[in-house]
């Protein structure tokens, strides 16, 4: 009797299971009997409550041989008198160290020539008028790590002046024999990095600011029969500015000098506190004011900006968004980090309190960007929220 018993019981179990059926197809049947705990999602648009240039100077220092990624990648020097924006003077600082070990022949020889090869990879200003710059000896040690555009460093005596047409390319500067002679022993020692402190690059004449790539610029030091290359280890640019007023409907974001714009929204208002934030998008609109420039005058524009979240005490700043300027001039920030930051501000928990728009530090330029500050295209945040009852 056992086999029929087993089969019959199995048949009953399976039949019962199949009879009931399976599958789930929930619909909105019964929605009228639900007391919602929250409303349906909606979009809330908030215009910026704060949108103004910060006077904080940009980070323009950038060490080469460190793990830091935020350092500047070029040094700027020169002066430009922009007919629309005013005058900016850039003072550059570079320091070197030998890129390879010195041979005994080099150490025992006498330096016959020194050549500085600066690779111009950035130009802002009049490209038709020669630019004259001056190298000055740096008398003491200095550091570029985290240094900002308002850093003040004292330079020593002039080394050499050089002129060139401010266009992309290589500028070769021969260091005078007198300076070589007085530094002959220094550049043949292994500890030259501790004895030599680099140059200041000072504006003399012209109407342009140029940028020299730290990776492609070298100093060649030669003795008869041997040559050692020195690479830039530290670089820094400081700026002084005599700006013209910017039209009130715009905010000028200029890398290097006015590289930061404070941005905040009224996210802590009471009617938002009980909302769940599904999505946060910050929109900025760029502007293209009619800024006439003379022939041959180049004014590069920023191609991207960062969104930084900042704590209430300003102690912590973390990049939480990267925005490319789209073809229609719109910059949008949208990601999970931004949404989390906004949710925390709304609930008044966590450390983030406001935002900043900044130019990328690593570029180190004087690129400009005009941002709309009022009207329909004013900076705004679109929040997709669910209001909790």
């Amino acid at each position, binding site marked *: 009797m056992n086999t029929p018993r087993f089969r019959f019981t199995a048949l009953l179990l399976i039949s019962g299971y199949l009879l009931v059926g399976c599958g789930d197809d*929930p619909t909105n049947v019964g929605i009228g009997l639900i007391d919602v705990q929250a409303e349906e999602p909606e979009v809330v648009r908030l215009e910026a409550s704060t949108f103004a240039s910060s006077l904080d100077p940009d980070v323009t220092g950038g060490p080469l041989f460190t793990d830091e990624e935020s350092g500047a990648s070029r040094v700027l020097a020169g002066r430009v008198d922009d007919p629309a924006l005013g005058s900016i003077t850039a003072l550059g600082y570079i320091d070197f160290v030998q890129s390879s070990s010195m041979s005994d022949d080099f150490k025992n020889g006498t330096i016959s020539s020194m050549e500085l090869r600066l690779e111009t990879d950035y130009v802002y200003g009049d490209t038709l008028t020669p630019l004259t710059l001056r190298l000055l000896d740096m008398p003491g040690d200095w550091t570029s790590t985290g240094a900002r555009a308002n850093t003040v460093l004292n330079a020593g005596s002039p080394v050499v002046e050089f002129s060139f047409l401010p266009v992309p390319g290589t500028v070769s500067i021969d260091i005078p024999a007198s300076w070589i002679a007085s530094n002959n022993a220094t550049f043949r020692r292994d500890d030259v990095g501790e004895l030599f402190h680099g140059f200041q690059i000072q504006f003399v004449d012209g109407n342009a600011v140029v940028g020299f790539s730290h990776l492609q610029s070298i100093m060649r030091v030669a003795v008869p029969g041997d040559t050692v290359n020195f690479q830039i280890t530290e670089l820094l640019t400081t700026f002084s500015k005599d700006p013209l007023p910017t039209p009130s409907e715009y905010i000028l974001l200029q890398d290097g000098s006015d590289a930061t714009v404070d941005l905040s929204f009224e996210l802590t208002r009471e009617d938002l506190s009980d909302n*769940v934030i599904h999505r946060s998008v910050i929109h900025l609109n760029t502007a293209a004011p009619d800024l006439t420039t003379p022939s041959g005058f180049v004014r590069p524009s920023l191609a991207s900006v960062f969104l930084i979240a900042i704590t209430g005490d300003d102690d912590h700043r973390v990049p939480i968004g990267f925005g490319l300027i789209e073809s229609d001039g719109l910059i949008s920030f949208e990601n999970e980090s931004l949404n989390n930051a906004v949710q925390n501000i709304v609930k008044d928990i966590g450390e983030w309190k406001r935002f900043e728009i900044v130019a990328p530090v690593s570029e180190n330029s004087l690129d400009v960007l005009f941002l709309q500050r009022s009207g329909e295209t004013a900076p705004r945040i679109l929040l997709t929220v669910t209001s909790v009852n």
Partner: protein
Amino acid sequence: MRFVHPHSVSYRKCLFSALLIWVIAGVTTQTAIAQSLTDGSIYSRFGLGDRSSFFSSKSQGMGGGGVAFGSINYVNFANPASFGDMIFTRFSAGINYETVTESADNEDSSKLASGYLNAIQFAFPLKPNKFGFGLSFTPFTRVSYRVDSHGTIVSDPEDGTQEPFITSFRGNGGLHKLSAGLGYRIGNSLGIGASADFVFGIIEETQRTTFESIRFVDSHIVKSTRLSGFSATLGIRFSRPRLFGANDAFSVGATFSVPTTLSAHRVFTVGESEAVDTLKTNLKGNVDLPKSIGVGIAYQPNRHWTIVADIFFEEWSAFKSDLAFPGYAPGGAGAFDDRLRFSGGAEFFPSARDQFSGFFRAMTFRLGFYADRSYVSPEPSTKINSIGVTGGISVPTLIPGTRIDMNLDVGRRGTTDNGLIEDRYIRFGVSLNFGERWFIQRKLR
């Protein structure tokens, strides 16, 4: 008589056990994977949930009553007085799988499925046929519903981008009852019993908004209410053999569950993801459960047939709570109706006490019906009534004293009038009832 090789019996036992495990695992696995097995009727949202009772798989096949009947194959947890009838130690466990088709006027229907543990019961005689102990873990109320609302939002008014989303309203959980009781038989006719009942559980309501686009963070808002408290049930049963004939038996029973107060703790959380929840409110209070009374009769015209009829009354009109529940606001006395449930059923046992009958004659067949007036109604002018028919088959196994019971419950609840919902449901339950002589001291011969 046929003799079976011992190895063959052992093999089939294993095979049989494997089949049972497969069925139970099949249901529970689907619970885990599909997440659909907590989806049920919207009416379970109201009050403390859908009242649910499970006394035994025998009573479930006979309409769900059973205050008066006794059995040597089952422990009757409908009435603690019946614990005194026990001869064997008994263990029982069962699961239910249920589908509900909800429909409303001028709307599509919604098909929902849920699976859940029916009961775990354990009982043994302290003195066979005289004094017994029973322990059971059974559902008391059950909250299990799901309503999905589909919508679209213009997420970026500047470019008109639209995003579809689903707002899903779900409820799950409910109260369970852990009962420990004693039953004592006074003479041949009267039995009395009492049980201490610990009523506890969590009722959780969730509103989850999910977007198709990964650029949106889903949200979930959870209202979770934890309740617990003690109650007690008293029972009495009177049986009289040979009332109308030589082989008949008649019994009548009654139970009374005392009103009690549960302590409640409610937590309201709002989360933007699965990981992070923010506490919004935290409430505490008391919830008064009403008294309930059950009365039943059972009649066995002969050894093959048993007929039962029961009526249960629960005074939910006296329900009070410091916390609000769907359909009830604090201070709203009389928000609920008294619950009334009537059931009847019959069992046919072809072999009766013939232990040498064949497999099919050793099976038991049951049929029943019930009518239930719910204690809640979303629309006060319209009562929510349920009617259903039940059926069951009890199959003997190779293990003496052990049976597998399969029950089916097909019913309808509610109405589509006044904006309400009509449920049509099918429940399939499987229970394993194990019986053995434990704890009985053998007499020396």
